[in-house]
């Protein structure tokens, strides 16, 4: 038997949806998060970029979904776990060249990923939409 005297916590995870015009790029993520060139925060957000890419479970070309059945499969494939806000963003950005990435961050990997996993945020600019608001799937 082991006795632990410090904090005992459960692990956490945060689902994310990223919608981009074209491929998700490191520099575009930095721009989205407000990190300017030469920032000492660059390694932190570059690690987030790597963690997001490593954690992608599904990648979808939104522009190639032409019929309603496919669209319903995408939305319905995640059960009722897509929030109304996510569905509305997916619908509004459904155009040629747009990609959607679904995945989740985990608190049991690196300290960097743990930090972002335990935060709750939604960011958007003209190139990227990033939703990491809830633990949905």
């Amino acid at each position, binding site marked *: 038997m082991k006795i632990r005297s410090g904090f005992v916590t459960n692990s956490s995870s945060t689902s994310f949806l990223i919608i981009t015009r074209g491929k998700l790029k490191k520099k575009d993520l930095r721009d989205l998060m*407000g990190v*300017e060139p030469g920032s000492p*925060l660059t*390694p*932190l957000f570059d690690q987030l970029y790597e963690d997001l890419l490593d954690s992608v479970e599904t990648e979808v070309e939104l522009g190639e979904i032409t019929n309603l059945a496919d669209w319903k499969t995408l939305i319905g494939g995640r059960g009722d776990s897509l929030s109304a806000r996510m569905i509305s963003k997916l619908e509004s950005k459904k155009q040629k060249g747009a990609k959607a990435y679904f995945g989740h961050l985990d608190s049991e990997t690196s300290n960097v990923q743990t*930090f972002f996993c*335990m935060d709750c*945020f939604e960011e958007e600019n003209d190139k990227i939409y990033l939703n990491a608001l809830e633990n949905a799937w």
Partner: protein
Amino acid sequence: MIITVYDDRRFRDEYILPIRHVPTEVQFLHRARVRQDSYAGRLMSELYHRLFDISLELKRDYSTYYEVEYATFAQYLRKRHLLSKSEATELSARYARAAAIIRFGRLYTFMEEGVGTELLSKLLDLED
């Protein structure tokens, strides 16, 4: 210079660092090179708040409250903060030229890796 001490009442590492100049929040964000109205900007504002509003400021606390009780800053560090002799000596040597000496617990999980130490060194212009 960053001194790490283990707080066995809270089961966590705490950090003590002497700072030569305490930046304003605007200067801090400028050094961080982040846009103020962004995720990174909000993160750095929160970090500034945690470092300079919530943390203990040992130099100020000593000169304001504890100087009557402890004859030297080193004694204050040894008896009040339970630092080792070498840590107290090292910090005392920096007392005169430090604008502030702050002590804080865990800030963010990412601060515990090399990226965090390097970040603090750059943001606060710390001595080696």
